[in-house]
């Protein structure tokens, strides 16, 4: 029987949503597998989350140490390396902490590593069949993973169906087995994102621009359309990287989470990091001159046009209403 461990991230004593998605992912790897949750941290927050997780997992391992009060990937890696048995499969969320932790963990556990898994198609012997995406989601790929010596797998949050919490498991305290937790990296502080002039999270309609805007001067075209619609201009990551708009305008997992009624994706390819910032199932209109842009798979309405020509046409028609 495959032994699967799920490393559950949490904040302020509350598990991230992915905690409910690991069991579904594990089932797709091996329906008969036992799945154990692992949480690391310190004090009351850790106890709270470990207790909550017993409703989802039959076994919850907690590792309590002041060195992990803030999740430092190097420290957590050391603790996990001492606690996870050889040959196990370890599931980690493909988020900013998981990306910090998981590749190195696979080296220390001497196991295989596959990142950002979006689906599993079962196990053949010790060979796991995995579905991933490449090239910013433009193509998918099947990969095989030799898990004979175990595997560390990061899964994309929000991809596997969440389970209901109906277990009544137990917490196992393995704090004493964590070993030496000294590290060459020290956490200092979290610097909160600056609040911008415009709060894109409050707007019902967003005109959101991506690479298709091509030039900083063209942002005005989007602003004029937004004005006509009573909307606010937001953007995808490349626009902030280019310093054309402030960070507070960025929609995505590394930016703002928005819940508009209508989302106008203008020249945005639609990476999962971007789509991860759009919640509440809005009506998504995608305009992109590339007919193969991944955004067309998730949008409600798609238009293959150059946004620099389409936006003024739409603006004019709206103003004439």
């Amino acid at each position, binding site marked *: 029987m495959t032994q699967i461990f799920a490393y559950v991230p949490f904040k302020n004593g509350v598990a991230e949503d992915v905690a409910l998605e690991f069991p579904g992912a594990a089932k797709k790897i091996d329906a008969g597998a036992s799945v154990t949750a692992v949480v690391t941290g310190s004090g009351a927050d850790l106890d709270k989350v470990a207790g909550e997780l017993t409703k989802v997992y039959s076994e919850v391992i907690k590792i309590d140490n002041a060195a992990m009060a803030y999740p430092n*990937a*190097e420290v957590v890696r050391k603790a996990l390396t001492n606690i996870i048995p050889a040959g196990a499969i370890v599931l980690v969320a493909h988020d*900013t902490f998981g*990306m*910090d*932790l*998981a*590749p*190195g*963990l*696979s*080296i220390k556990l001497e196991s295989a*590593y*596959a990142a950002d898994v979006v689906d599993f198609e079962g196990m053949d012997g010790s060979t796991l069949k995995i*579905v*991933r995406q490449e*090239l*910013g989601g433009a193509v*998918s*790929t*099947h*990969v*095989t*993973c*030799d898990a004979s010596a175990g*595997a560390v797998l990061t899964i994309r949050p929000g991809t596997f169906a969440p389970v209901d919490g109906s277990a009544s498991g137990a917490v196992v305290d393995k704090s004493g087995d964590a070993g030496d937790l000294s*590290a*060459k*990296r*020290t*956490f*200092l502080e*979290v*610097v909160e*994102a600056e609040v911008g002039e415009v709060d894109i999270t409050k707007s019902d*309609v967003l005109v959101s621009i991506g690479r298709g805007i091509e030039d900083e001067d063209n942002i005005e075209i989007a602003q004029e359309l937004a004005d006509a*619609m009573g909307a606010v201009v937001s953007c995808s*990551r490349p626009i902030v990287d*280019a310093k054309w708009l402030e960070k507070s305008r*960025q929609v995505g997992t590394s*930016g703002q*989470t928005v819940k508009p*009624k*209508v989302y106008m994706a203008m020249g945005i390819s639609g990476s999962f990091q971007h789509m991860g910032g759009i919640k509440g199932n809005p*009506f998504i*209109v995608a305009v992109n001159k*590339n007919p*193969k842009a991944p955004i*067309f*798979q*998730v*949008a*409600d*309405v*798609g238009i293959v*046009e150059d946004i620099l020509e389409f936006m003024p*046409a*739409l603006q004019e*028609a709206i103003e004439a*209403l």
Partner: protein
Amino acid sequence: MEILVCVKRVPDTAENEFELNSEGNDLDRDDLVYSVNEWDNYAVEEAIQIVDNLGGSITVVTVGDDEAEEVLRREMAMGANNGVLLSDEAFEGSDGKGIATILKAEVEKGNYDLILTGAQADEGAGQIGGMLAAMLDYPYASLVNKIEPADGKIKVGREIEGGNQEMNEIELPCVLSIQTGINEPRYVGIRGIRKVASVDIPVKGAGDLGLDAGSVGEAGAKIKRVDYFVPDLGDGAEMLEGSTDEIVEKLIEKLKAKGGL
């Protein structure tokens, strides 16, 4: 500061429409436009800014075939001092761990204080930096969007969820994966490329690096790509077609119904 930046030649997502070949198991690679991985340009720019302030030198390295040399030259045109191409038939089919193993062998031939990678590349795994650091027992930070060098250690900011930034202190030598937006990579013109066109770029194979061929390449790979495919995600978007005026008219009706106007 001696800095090694690991770079990769990748299909350019901004310049290509990806299609499958006639067998439907691989990309149609005939007309693909390749360039240096976008994240790597930020890593090289960051290295240049550090060396401008503190002195030192920058080496860019890649694992690839002969054609990969062009990305090394591009990064040298940006300002990297040296380039190294790690190339061998035995490297073909390497998974992430294989690539990290090859790079580790090269790192150990030098005396680097700082090793930079892009936060991710075409495969979207974001794995090489973390693996390389663990193999070397160097500290590591991913998704770095700020670097402040100090004596014997550096302060790094990591991009975390919600646009927040996690500040850490990290001992040298270390490995950092660089996120886009950390700086504004300088433009490289034709003239810059010409200047480095004849610079000698050493090529090293498994033997030069003291690598056992079975530990890298397809032989050592636990992760193997079987095929590429386009997923069937249901209906996708309802595509509006016709003249621009017709599309605008249809869209306005929908926007009215959905509360967009």
